[in-house]
C-alpha cells in the first residue's frame, strides 16, 4: 500500500485531536514523521530498494557538535571511539571544569575501549570554555569533547 495525500491529511487530523505531540509511522518503506507545532510537519523518506537509479542521497550524518559559544576556541576531539569519563574514578572530582586552566599535557578526560583506559590531553594551553560530553557517554572518533579558550 502507499500513502496518498488524503491519508496523510487524515493522519494529521487524528494527531491534531490526540494528546500526543509527535507521531512517526513506517508503512512499506514510507516513513512519516509528524510533529505538532513544528515548521516542517511532514517529512517523507522513501527507502530505496537495493539502490537502483541515480537517486539523491538523504541528509549527511556529518554535522553533529553544537556551535561554539564564542569565536577563537580550540577544539579537543576524541582520538578514539569509546566511553568518555570526566573523572579518574567514580565519585572523584572531574579532571577539568569550565574555567579550569589547562596546559598542553593536562588530562581532560579518559576514554575507555574494552577496559583499556586512554587519557586525553588538552593539547593547548588556555582555559576550558565548554564541556560538550557528559560523563560515561559513548563518544565517537573525532567527536569534540571540550573547547578551550587559548591563552596564557
Amino acid at each position, binding site marked *: 500500500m502507499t500513502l496518498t495525500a488524503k491519508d496523510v491529511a487524515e493522519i494529521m487530523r487524528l494527531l491534531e485531536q490526540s494528546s500526543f505531540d509527535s507521531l512517526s509511522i513506517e508503512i512499506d518503506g514510507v516513513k512519516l514523521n509528524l510533529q505538532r507545532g513544528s515548521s516542517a510537519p511532514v517529512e517523507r523518506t522513501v527507502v530505496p530498494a537495493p*539502490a537502483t537509479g541515480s537517486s539523491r*542521497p538523504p541528509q549527511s*550524518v556529518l554535522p553533529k557538535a553544537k556551535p561554539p559559544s564564542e569565536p577563537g576556541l580550540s577544539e579537543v576531539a576524541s582520538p578514539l*571511539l*569509546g*566511553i568518555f569519563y570526566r573523572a579518574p574514578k567514580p565519585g572523584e572530582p572531574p579532571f577539568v571544569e569550565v574555567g579550569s586552566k589547562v596546559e598542553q599535557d593536562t588530562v581532560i578526560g579518559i576514554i575507555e575501549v574494552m577496559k583499556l583506559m586512554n587519557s586525553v590531553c588538552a593539547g593547548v594551553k588556555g582555559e576550558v570554555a565548554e564541556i560538550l560530553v557528559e560523563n560515561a557517554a*559513548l563518544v565517537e572518533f573525532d567527536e569534540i569533547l571540550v573547547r578551550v579558550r587559548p591563552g596564557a
Partner: protein
Amino acid sequence: MAIRRILIANRGEIALRVIRTCRTLGIETVLAASKADLDSLPARLADRTLCIGPARPSDSYLRQDTIVQAALGVKADAIHPGYGFLSERTVLARLCEQEGVVFIGPTAAQIEAVGDKLRARAEAESSGVPTAPGGAVENVREAMALGRRIGSPLLIKAVGGGGGRGMKRVDRLEDIPSSMELAGAEAGAAFGDARVYLERFVERGRHVEVQILGDGNGRVVHLGERDCSVQRRYQKLIEETPATGLSADFRARLHSAAVQFAERLCYRSAGTVEFLVDLERDAFYFLEMNARIQVEHPVTEAVTGTDLVAEQIAIAEGRGLRLKQEEVRPEGCAMECRINAEDPARDFQPSPGTVRTAVWPSGDGVRVDTHIVSGSRIPPYYDSLMAKIIVHASDRPAALKRMQGALAATRIEGVATNLAFHADVLTDPEFETGGVDTSYLPRFLERRRLAQEVRAHG
C-alpha cells in the same frame, strides 16, 4: 533471543545489503563507519552511524575492540561483520562471545577450524570429502619427497592463507626448495604463520562452490552451487548458478560433500564450501570453506528466493533453519557481474575518485547491490567494488542477454570501471558456450592484448 538492534561492522554495498534486510525485519541498524565513509549511502541510511576511527582500515574497520565497544555503547544485540575485514577473524567472534554480543556468523572455534587451511583439509578428509593430492610439509626434504609423489605442476600454499593469497605455483620439482623458502617467508610476513603445504595444481579446473546454511546443532542444508571460474589473479569477476555442464549425479555429490563437511563442524550460519572441479577426471577437490556471507551470495538468492542475510539473523537468534532441504528448489539461471572502480587498460589499477554520474539498470530480473550514487566518493583505502549487477532468467542464454542489456543501461562517469570489459567477456563465444575453467580469463586477456597490438601496428 530476538535481535532488535544490529551493529554493522562493514562498509560499502554489503553494509547497505544488511541494512536493507534489517529494515524489512524491523531491526534497527547502527553502522560502524570510518571517517572516510561518514558521507556514504549506508552511513546515511543506517538508523545511526558511529565514527569508529580514521580512514585506514587498521585504525577503524579492523579494530575488534573498538567494534565491540561500539556495540556495547549503543546496546546492540548483535554484530554483523559482512565479508572481509573482521568477518573471519577469530578474535572478534571470541570477544563477542565473552561480552554477550551475538556474532552473526559461525562460532570462534569454527572460524579457527576453517581458517587454518591445513586443518580444514584434515577436516575434509575426515568427513569423506575429497582433497587434492598433497599435504603438510615441515621442510624441503619432505617437500621434495611429497612433490615427487604427486608430480608437477603443484602449488605451495600458506596454511594461514586463502582466497588465492599465499600461493606459489611450481612447474619443475627442482624449483621446490627456492619456492618453498620464499612462500614460507611471505606467509610468515603476511599471516604470522610460516607453515606451508603442497597440493597438486589442477590446470583445467573450475571453481565451483556450494552455499550452505547450518543451525549450529548439526543440521545443514545446501542452496545449490555457484560457478566462479571467471577470475583474474584469484579475484572473481563473474559468478553464475547453476554451474554449466555438470551431470545431475556430479552436482548431487558436490552438494552432499559440502553438507557433510559443514555437518561435521556443526557449522552455524551461512557459509560456502569451495571446490576445484576437474571435469576431465570427473573429480572434485575441497579447496576451502569461507565462514561468512560472500560477495556473490545474491545469485543464490535469485534462484532460490531466499534472503540469506535474513537466514543468518534467524540462525543467530537461535531460530534454527527455516528451510528443509526439499524446499530448496532453485529456478532458472542467475549471473552476477562485479563492477569495480578499476582500469582494465592499466592492468586493472584501482581508480578511486568521485563518481560524477551513476545510473544503474533496473527492470524484471535485474538486481543491483550498490552503495554508489551520483556524487559518491570512492576512497582509496578500501577495495574497488562499486556494485554487483545480478540478473535472473529462465535459462543461461536468457540470463546472458539480460545481463548484456543491464550493462548497456549502466552509466558511470568520473572513475574508470570494468563495465566495458564485462561486456566484452559476455559476448566472447567461449564464455557464451559456458563451463569455462579458471584459466579462461587470463587467456581471454592475452587474446585481447594481441588483438589490440595487431590493430595498433596494422
